[in-house]
């Protein structure tokens, strides 16, 4: 019990602080609209009258937390209860569209990242020729090339899931490559010497030493990779003309000034990212435990 108290108390404190700041921000940012409206109608309005109005606007600058919560409930839980979980208006449906592209892109990105790292670690030529391009690829703003990728792929008949996943992959392979290059190089000199005294082949050294040594690095970089994947999938949805997905909701929301809708989509995206990162963390812990690695004290 004290464990739970110890763990939950800090979390709730931070959440409470965020919500407080959020409400304060909503009041501060939405109040000018109310004063202007009143002024245009030649009315005097007190702060006490303004206060509730700032939290119930149709298109607030910053929607209040409960407005966002209501919108999320309306587009998730309430729709599930009406048996319409996967209707076009359901955020669950949109989240799933984004998540499927995220997961596919993440799997592809992780695979590409590992392959590149294996090549870079084993070949000096690859380290010199490929690594600069890997780094350059990440200096290009994804927003600039995402539409190109969509357009180019559409012209060869690839639409829907695949183009978005490729953008996801583009963002998520990088942390995996960098992490795995470090991970595959992490064995101690002594361990490498040991394999040499056994006259172990390169592939034996890889599977028995380099690969297991790199796993903690893999999971750390996968956590970053999956968050990047989600961003990639959302960005990939923006140029498709707002058909479906969290990105589409964000775009549609901004077209029509539906700030509540934008914030709902943002919160759902954040929750998805949190869940995905946690999931990778749990898998990583399981793998570490099976590998007999002593847990950090907690």
């Amino acid at each position, binding site marked *: 019990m004290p464990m739970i108290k110890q763990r939950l108390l800090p979390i709730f404190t931070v959440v409470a602080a965020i919500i407080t700041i959020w409400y304060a921000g909503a009041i501060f940012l939405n109040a000018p609209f109310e004063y202007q409206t009143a002024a245009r109608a030649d009315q005097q309005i007190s702060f006490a009258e303004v206060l509730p109005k700032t939290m119930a606007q149709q298109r607030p600058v910053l929607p209040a937390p409960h407005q966002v919560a209501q919108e999320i409930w309306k587009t998730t839980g309430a729709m599930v209860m009406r048996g319409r979980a996967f209707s076009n208006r359901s955020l669950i449906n949109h989240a799933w569209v984004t998540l499927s592209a995220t997961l596919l892109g993440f799997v592809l990105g992780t695979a590409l990242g590992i392959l590149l790292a294996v090549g870079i670690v084993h070949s000096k030529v690859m380290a010199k020729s490929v690594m600069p391009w890997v780094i350059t690829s990440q200096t290009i703003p994804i927003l600039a090339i995402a539409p190109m990728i969509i357009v180019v792929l559409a012209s060869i008949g690839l639409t829907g899931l695949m183009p978005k996943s490729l953008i996801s992959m583009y963002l998520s392979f990088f942390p995996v490559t960098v992490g795995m290059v470090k991970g595959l190089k992490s064995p*101690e000199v*002594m*361990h490498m*010497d*040991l*394999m*040499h*005294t*056994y*006259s*172990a082949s390169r592939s*034996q050294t890889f599977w*028995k*030493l380099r690969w*297991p040594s790199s796993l903690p690095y893999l999971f750390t970089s996968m956590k970053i990779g999956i968050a990047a994947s989600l961003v990639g999938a959302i960005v990939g949805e923006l140029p498709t003309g707002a058909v479906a997905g969290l990105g589409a909701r964000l775009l549609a929301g901004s077209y029509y000034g539906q700030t509540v809708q934008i914030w709902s989509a943002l919160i759902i995206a954040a929750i998805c990212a949190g869940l995905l990162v946690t999931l990778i963390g749990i898998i990583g812990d399981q793998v570490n435990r099976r*590998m*007999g*690695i*002593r847990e950090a004290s907690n």
Partner: protein
Amino acid sequence: MTVISAASLNLTFETNDGPVHALSDINLDVQKGEFVSLIGPSGCGKTTLLRVIADLEKPTGGAITVEGTTPENARLNRAYGYVFQASALFPWRTIADNVALPLEVMGLTQAERQKRVTENLKLVDLEGFEKKFPWQLSGGMQQRASIARALAVQPDMLLMDEPFGALDEIVRDHLNVQLLKLWKETGKTIVFVTHSIPEAVYLSTKIVVMSPRPGRIHEIIDCDLGEDRPLEVRETTKFLKIAQRVRDGLAAGHAYD
């Protein structure tokens, strides 16, 4: 039978601060079944010499044969087992799996691996620890496991690089007794790097005193304490005399400068 033979062996490392003469004109013969200690201060090249024998370093001059062939061929023939300063156990493998590691590399069957793991863990008194992970064992036990791993290859030679250097004296004494027993039982040739004079005298049949800058052999001292060496042999006059000779040799080789 000569198992290791070095003649005018030289090794120079090229570093940013210029060449470092790690081994200079090394002449050394090791006979089958001998227990040879290499002793000297840091920088005398004792570890480098061991690494040359193990084909972990390539000499830049002179000749060396191991079991009548090049160190590389000897390594490929799995002529030796190497024990490092630290146990170098893989933390993600159990003790049994660690001992089985070289056997997997050799491509032995599961049954043969199992047999050799059991045999060699018994030899170092680690029965019952098969399923433990390295961190669950004390430093001394870890080093014993790494000796079992080296023995599992069934090499004719053991090359040991300050294997007990990181352990406290009580554990070290215990392991010295065990190592001597193991040496007597198996009849293996052992080349042992140390910077402890009592350890070298207690264990060896031959002590190679080395000196630094450039790394060279100063003196080779025979250590004829006989087959049977209880720990108490260290209080005998004969033991102390040999120890004194080693100390004199180190001093004459400028080890204490």
